[in-house]
């Protein structure tokens, strides 16, 4: 039974045969609890019959509400309703599942003059345990900067860095910050002040690494990025603080 997330666009393909050839035809695929209550539809898809099987595509945006929906196809030839079909398998629109932990950078706050030699900022991070059990995770924040022309893919940099971090843990290289959250607990963490040569570990609990790759070129605009990860490879959305000239 096909299972899809709510509101995603999917395309169904069905072989349709209409004889004789040369007739203006239309077909509509729709989902619903019954054939009188369509909740998602491809609309009428036109084609000209060839007398043989034709692959007809039906793009459909899945319903927003989770549930099980029957799949129907109505077939028209020369403007006349020919037949209605119901697929032998229903479509299941799944209930969205939250990841066990969600990690979000709520804000990045610039401190001081971003045109100075070091651009300092702090990250406000929200960590949420979406499960019904107490969970312990180890997290860290990664930050980087780069030149426009060379470091235009900070996400890839973060992923590569995270792989290194996970491979080194525990106890080797930069330590992780261990965090225990009770069921459904959500907390906010404020990072230490960051500047371009690394995190200042003012809490003495964890370190926020900064390993920018490549050569630093003065006078070239840099883009500053931050993201949060856990040691299971889950990564929150990376966030850009912006760009600045570094000298």
């Amino acid at each position: 039974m096909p299972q899809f997330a709510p509101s995603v666009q999917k395309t169904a393909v069905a072989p349709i045969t209409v004889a004789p050839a040369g007739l203006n035809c239309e077909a509509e695929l729709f989902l619903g609890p019954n054939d009188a209550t369509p909740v998602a539809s491809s609309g009428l898809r036109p084609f000209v019959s060839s007398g043989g099987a034709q692959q007809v595509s039906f793009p459909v945006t899945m319903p927003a509400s989770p549930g099980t929906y029957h799949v129907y196809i109505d077939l028209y030839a020369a403007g006349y309703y020919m037949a209605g079909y119901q697929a032998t398998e229903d479509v299941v629109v799944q209930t969205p599942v939250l990841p066990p932990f969600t990690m979000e950078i709520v804000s990045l706050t610039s401190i001081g003059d971003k045109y100075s030699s070091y651009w300092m900022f702090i990250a406000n991070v929200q960590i949420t345990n979406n499960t019904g059990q107490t969970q312990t995770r180890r997290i860290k924040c990664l930050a980087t900067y780069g030149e426009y022309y060379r470091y235009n893919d900070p996400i890839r940099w973060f992923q590569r860095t995270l792989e290194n971090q996970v491979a080194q843990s525990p106890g080797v290289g930069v330590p992780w910050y261990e965090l225990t959250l009770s069921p459904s607990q959500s907390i906010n963490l404020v990072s230490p002040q960051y500047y371009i040569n690394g995190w200042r570990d003012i809490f003495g609990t964890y370190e926020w690494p900064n390993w920018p790759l490549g050569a630093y070129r003065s006078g070239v605009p840099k883009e500053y990025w931050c993201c949060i990860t856990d040691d299971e490879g889950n990564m929150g959305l990376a966030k850009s603080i912006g760009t600045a000239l570094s000298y």
Partner: protein
Amino acid sequence: MDRQMLQMDDPVFPPSASKTAKAPITVMPAGLSCQAELFLGTSPTNKAATSGLIPFTSTGAQQLISLPVTMPAAGGVAYHVYLDVYAEGYLLLAYLATEDVIIPSGSVGPITW
């Protein structure tokens, strides 16, 4: 009797649909007991659907005769359309429409997402 060609429009109908054809028929003189039959088939001797004999009395002028037909259930076929007119039991006119009636057929195979 050679069959004559007869003009006709709208040749596509769904299977088993009930339709009524109307044909202007002129039989002279007036007062004759007449019948008309419209039928669909792949040949004059192979009737797939028919109106049956529809009786009327000639007026000597043109009469619009209604000929109800239930379309064949078998689709995917182009059927010839025939019209026979009888007067006092004798076959007077035999027509073949210039266009066939098309009964489409359709089928839908398995859906792939």
